[in-house]
């Protein structure tokens, strides 16, 4: 079934990618523009990149975004993995109920999640004497991240041989050892996947942050939204370009390494098979 697509299919797929990357190209090109205009090109310059590294507001918003995304992704991964392990050993009915609640923040509109958390934070904040800020922002991010981690880890648990843990313990491992040395390596791909999804979602989130961060703390997305009322500084284009290129480079490196490894493995397999055939002919 490979590469039998008609020409029209290729054209369509190229058009979709053009559509997805057109505005990104505009952003990147205009981060090098000499003037502040976002439609008129007036010459190449690295002006905005220089300005960027002196702009306290943007840099602090960026560091808030990174801090909250890293912390939220890590905490959500720990809580979510533990939850998935617990859910997995439950009976069908309670598990089904909990997974339905787990689905709520994923399926629900972001704005409702944001608004409902804002009501909770303002309400309890008045009682306990705290206000919206970094803490509430972090809690909100963890809340919308965990469901994705749970759903990334659960399938790995289902694939697991249920006797594996017992076998380890029969051979003298403590439950803790059985968990770390036997279960963990099996679950790792799911956990890493969950971590990555959680981090990406946190970086990209605007709506929930907007309602839960208050007026003292701002993420990059909130800063950008505030700027859209007047005009977005090309400094933001510059920052996004740097981010985009970094992520692109990381993804390419990881993938080339993986592809290289699979190719090597294939070569080795082929060589082994050849040897096997020769051996058999003797």
């Amino acid at each position, binding site marked *: 079934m*490979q590469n039998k697509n008609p020409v029209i299919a290729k054209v369509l*797929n190229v058009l979709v990618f053009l559509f997805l990357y057109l505005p990104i190209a505009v952003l990147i090109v205009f981060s090098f523009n000499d003037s502040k205009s976002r439609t008129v090109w007036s010459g190449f310059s690295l002006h905005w990149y220089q300005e960027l590294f002196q702009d306290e507001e943007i840099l602090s918003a960026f560091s808030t975004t990174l801090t909250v995304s890293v912390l939220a992704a890590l905490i959500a991964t720990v809580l979510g993995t533990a939850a998935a392990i617990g859910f997995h050993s439950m009976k069908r009915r309670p598990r089904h109920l909990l997974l339905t609640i787990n689905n*709520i923040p994923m*399926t629900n509109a972001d704005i409702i999640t944001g608004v409902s958390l804002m009501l909770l934070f303002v309400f309890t904040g008045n009682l306990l004497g705290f206000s919206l800020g970094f803490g509430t922002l972090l809690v909100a991010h*963890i*809340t919308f991240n*965990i469901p994705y981690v749970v759903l990334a880890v659960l399938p790995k648990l289902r694939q697991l041989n249920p006797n594996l843990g017992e076998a380890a313990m029969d051979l003298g491992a403590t439950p803790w050892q059985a968990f770390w040395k036997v279960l963990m390596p099996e679950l790792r791909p799911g956990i890493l996947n969950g971590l990555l999804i959680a981090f*990406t979602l946190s970086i990209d989130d605007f*709506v929930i942050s907007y*309602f839960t961060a208050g007026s003292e703390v701002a993420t990059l997305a909130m800063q950008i939204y505030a700027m859209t009322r007047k005009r977005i500084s090309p400094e933001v284009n510059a920052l996004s370009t740097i981010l985009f290129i970094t992520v692109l480079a990381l993804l390419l490196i990881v993938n080339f390494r993986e592809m290289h490894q699979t190719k090597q493995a294939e070569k080795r397999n082929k060589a082994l098979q050849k040897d096997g055939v020769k051996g058999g002919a003797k």
Partner: protein
Amino acid sequence: MKTKTPAIPYVVWMAVFVVVPLLLIVVYAFTNYDGKFTLENFTNLDVFLQVCGNSLYLAAVATAICLLIAYPFAYFLAQTGPTTRKVAMLFIMLPMWMNFLLRTYAWMSILENHGFLNQLLALVGIPPLHIINTDAAVILGMVYNFLPFMILPIFSVIEKLDRRYIEAAQDLGAGKLQVFRRVIFPLSVPGVISGIMMVFIPSISTFAISKLLGGGMSFLLGDLIEMQFLGSAYNPHLGSAISLMMLLLVIIAMLIMNRFGDGEEGAVMM
């Protein structure tokens, strides 16, 4: 390793940060500023109905366009080799690393009256199009931002489709079109439903896209809610009432989806 205890922290977390906040919305929706029970928030829903109609319409059009683009895209992509598929998926996800507000803002530069699109059209001699600040621009913004959420679930369903079904249908004499209509499409319905949900719900509730590309001309449910909580018309009780109505829409959509999906994990495939 059968133990339920590791789930306890998250169960508590869900109770406090998922269930209680939703209950608070219900409480706020049925009370007034003094904390007394009232139905007042639901009686002044003229504006709501009007905005709701507009939101549903725009979201439905955007979802339909997404489906029309995403289905063939995902279908053709699923026929390519494993490397192409993997790289293509990476490039579908990659734009998410550039903030969506920024990408939407870039569309402003493209669609503006003196923007790139009209500059290009002028070169070819076509009169300028007025797109920015219209419903068309808002729909384009929705399609642009949510298209990957339609592609991913459809693609992952078609990719995992058991090839033997297709071969069996061919062996039994089905033509290309018949194989698609009677085998491939019915089997891909769960992905389609999940994609529709993942595009439709953010589309009815967006407020930033309509503000940037609609220029305040098209006012959506999201804008209405935002106004009650952080905007000029501060009234969290009315805002909660509107949120509650929207929540009902979401629940109805979820129930429809559960009928099609396999219940537990049909919801998200990423």
